[in-house]
């Protein structure tokens, strides 16, 4: 377990109070899931615990990490019907309407590149590696809207530690499933498929960076990037790549989908930054879904105290 100074512990790292209070039943259910392991339908332990347990009503009003009490959770219905997932169409409601077009089981994730332990892993196995934890994060889209989402996931670092990157590995590249027969949006070349994203290794290993498999205590809906997606809360939403099939460790900064499509508009880092505007629109404010007035966008989406040190000395206008 990672033990750090109290001031360094983000509230997102703190186990959800409900899970903590119910930890014995959580363990009990985990054991039940273990017993049911033969069943292909068995949900991973974390999902089981959350979908079986009742949501603590107080959690609905809980604050997002590093945020204020005004960070109310965005309703499930909004999170799952207002999506940017171009593989399922470019309209905001296309992904939820086309959600059933792709299958998330069976699903495997290939871990390759500069690692000591490459391999192809079944999603069911991956979800058993680490206990799933709830992380309430703000999500800031580059289009100047935002949500507050209770993800269910595990630190990306857990997977990275398991893969054992070699000393040459400096970046990680992630790819989304590329299969136009399942992904109707890929039949048009809106982006250079497959969608790829990348992080510096230290960003990938940051405790806030998670791989999510659920939200609101339920299995991740397809339109939100099932069965496994990245969540990097201090970067614009498009960095949080969905429906991951490949994780490659490399010594070079990987090409990323949006950067390839418009290099002047979407940089590799894409940290949320109210002072660096998109060339075509302002990033100073955002509309929180469900709210009327725009609110000020926070540097690093409000996670600066935890992540700013990774960019010390960098010109964030140049490395936008």
């Amino acid at each position, binding site marked *: 377990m990672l033990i750090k100074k109290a001031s360094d512990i983000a509230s997102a790292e703190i186990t959800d109070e409900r899970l903590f209070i119910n930890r014995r039943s959580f363990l009990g259910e985990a054991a039940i899931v273990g017993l049911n392991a033969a069943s292909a339908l068995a949900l991973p332990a974390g999902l089981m615990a959350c979908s079986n347990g009742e949501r603590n009503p107080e959690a609905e009003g809980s604050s997002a990490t590093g945020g204020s009490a005004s960070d109310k959770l965005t309703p499930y219905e909004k999170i799952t019907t207002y999506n940017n997932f171009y593989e399922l169409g470019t309209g905001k409601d296309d992904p939820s309407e086309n959600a059933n077009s792709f299958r998330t089981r069976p699903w495997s994730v290939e871990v390759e590149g500069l690692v000591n332990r490459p391999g192809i892993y079944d999603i069911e196995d991956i979800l058993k590696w680490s206990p799933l934890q709830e992380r309430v994060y703000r999500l800031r889209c580059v289009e100047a809207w935002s949500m507050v989402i209770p993800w269910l996931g595990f630190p990306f670092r857990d997977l990275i530690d398991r893969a054992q990157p070699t000393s040459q590995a400096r970046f990680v590249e992630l790819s989304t499933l590329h299969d136009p027969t399942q992904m109707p949006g890929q039949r048009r070349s809106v982006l250079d498929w497959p969608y790829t994203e990348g992080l510096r290794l230290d960003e990938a290993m940051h405790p806030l960076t998670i791989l999510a498999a659920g939200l609101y205590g339920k299995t991740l809906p397809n339109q939100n990037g099932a069965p496994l997606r990245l969540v990097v809360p201090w970067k614009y939403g498009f960095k949080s790549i969905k429906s991951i099939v490949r994780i490659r460790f490399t010594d070079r900064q990987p090409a990323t989908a949006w950067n390839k*499509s*418009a290099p002047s508009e979407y940089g590799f880092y894409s940290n949320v930054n109210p002072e660096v505007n998109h060339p075509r629109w302002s990033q100073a404010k955002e*509309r929180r879904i469900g709210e009327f007035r725009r609110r000020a966008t926070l540097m690093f989406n409000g996670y600066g105290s935890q992540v700013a040190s990774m960019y010390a000395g960098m010109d964030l206008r140049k490395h936008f």
Partner: protein
Amino acid sequence: MSRRTQAVRSGIFAASLIPLAWVVWGASTDNLGANPIDEIQLQTGRWALRFLALSLAISPLRRLTGWNSVIRYRRTFGLFAFFYATLHLINFIAIDKFFDVGDIVEDIAKHLYITVGMATWLALVPLALTSTRSSIRRLGGRRWNRLHQLVYVAAIGGTVHYLWAVKKDTLYPLLYFALFAVLLGYRAWMWLAKRQQPQAA
């Protein structure tokens, strides 16, 4: 005016208000999706372009089919284009930006697609103001026609505004672009044909 003409005119007027009714109904029943303000912006903008295209389709239709009486609907379509463009602007100023003058001015000055959008709306204002019969009389046909060529500027401006506003998928803006290219191209072609064949014959 015949009773039938009156009925058609009323029907067109009522039908032209359907998009507004749809938006009002959607907004009041929470049926505009998770981001209703953006949805209103998109819908009002698209309808402004559609009505602009309808108004620009009248003259070619008339010339190609000889159906002269359609001319009486051109003004209605033009005014509805202005109506939806104005709702689009009001939604931007009053709802999206909530009268934040600093933000609005900055957006218009710094973000080119908004600059173009604003200019497009301004190009429509004199057309709406001089849409009456008495204006035509006052200005005289030639000057009125000349002034109303601003509608070509608005068509191009509106499409460029849409094209630059979308993040990546330019399919819809390009469809409008193609539509206006046909409507304006037809006029350019007619104009050239007329120049090359002097009336002397």
